[in-house]
């Protein structure tokens, strides 16, 4: 296959990392010839992570950064809850879970990132409310931790994938619909 020549501007993302010694100046950009990516012998894969694109989640006001910061903080609390549960400390486990879900609602203000994220945020919020003060089981805590970890890495979530995530939570006994769903059922479902 004939090599297709094109021009592209290549920006080395490593220069934006804190540890990189070089300054982030425009002059470090360069142009190269671009070849099809299936040419393994010539292609070098540049792995781009969300951290590269959006910087350290600990600061910054960009919506994605805010969402990832909250998600990471929630994840830490849920992992602390799992740890406390494993040490037979139900009070500690419940306290950590409550801390996670105290900061969770703000994520809904970041819903413009993706509809899937919005849907997942709501479902997990309702799961917490429906627990009505009961302790989450170890299986439920783990599923919540896995779900949050997934959202940290995948904030641009399509709706179908969000539905799968909610189904997984449902499968371990978490109710991902609001308590008002029963009232709505009474109104919308005609006498059967």
């Amino acid at each position, binding site marked *: 296959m004939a090599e297709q020549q094109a021009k592209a501007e290549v920006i080395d993302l490593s220069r934006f990392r804190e540890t990189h010694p070089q300054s982030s100046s425009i002059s470090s950009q360069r142009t190269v010839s671009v070849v099809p990516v299936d040419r393994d012998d010539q292609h070098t894969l540049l792995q781009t992570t969300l951290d590269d694109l959006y910087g350290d989640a600990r600061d910054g006001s960009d919506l994605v950064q805010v969402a990832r910061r909250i998600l990471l903080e929630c994840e830490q609390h849920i992992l602390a809850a799992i740890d406390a549960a494993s040490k037979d400390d139900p009070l500690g486990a419940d306290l950590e879970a409550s801390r996670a879900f105290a900061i969770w609602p703000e994520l809904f203000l970041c*819903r413009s990132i993706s509809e899937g994220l*919005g*849907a997942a*945020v709501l479902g997990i919020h*309702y799961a917490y409310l429906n627990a009505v003060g009961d302790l989450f089981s170890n299986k439920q805590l783990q599923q919540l931790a896995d779900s949050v970890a997934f959202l940290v890495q995948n904030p641009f979530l399509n709706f179908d994938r969000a539905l799968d995530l909610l189904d997984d939570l449902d499968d371990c006994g978490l109710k991902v619909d609001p308590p008002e769903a029963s*009232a709505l059922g*009474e109104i*919308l479902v005609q006498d059967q």
Partner: protein
Amino acid sequence: MKYLSKTNRVFLDTTILVDAVLKSGVEGDNARKALAKYKERLLPQYAIKEFKAGALRNYIWLHTKSATLRTYDEIMTALTRMWARPSVSGTAWRAIRDFEHSISSRLPSDYTTRYPGQTLGEIQRAEIELWLRTLILRAWRKRTKIGTIVRPLTCYSEVDIKFTKNGIFEDEPIKCDVQDCCLRAPFVKRSVDIGKLLANFDKLPRKKETGRRKEALDHLHRTPNRPLSEKQCKALGDAVFVLQCPSDATLMTTNVADHGPLADAIGIITLAPASIIANS
């Protein structure tokens, strides 16, 4: 367990489909627990047709309102105007209007400063829209998971609901649009059973729906060669489940009052989820 059928098979009607996939409270829990008691769960396509044209369509209506109106208050006004009726409790109306568990009631106090442009009404509207979209799509997906789909309707196209780029659902077709329903052919062969059902109609609750059902069954019994209209097919309702239920299966329904006398006429066991759970 004497309340389970000989073959541990259950045949579901629309009420069970609705409860199992759409409801999250006690009714939903009961339906799902009862279903779990059976090894073989049979879901007739007639139930899916009724579900799509009935309960699911009602939720899709509300979702369309949530996608097209501006605030939660406007959505509630539309809901009240369309659905207010004596059988709905004041508690239910208050619960949905107040929406105490809305995520909007737990936002940080300074959110208006840090997230300008997001008003409370719009946040609640977005919440109900997203949640309804989730509920509708999950319910539609779940219909294939609660049982094996049986008794296909040759005149009905079970087309997936679609979420469009305009942000609303398309749910057509919900009708068959045929002159002669596909159920006429198999049902006219059951003339003896239809006669037995008709003989038990005096045991049914007196309501308009019962009258329409009797007329449709009469039409099949007395004039088996005349076309069965879509309207008559719809009127058959509960009688369809009774006639289609295998003789060795239990017919599960929340509406035993309407199904029971018809089912008894031809020896079909009818049970509600609560009975199955209580007696197993």
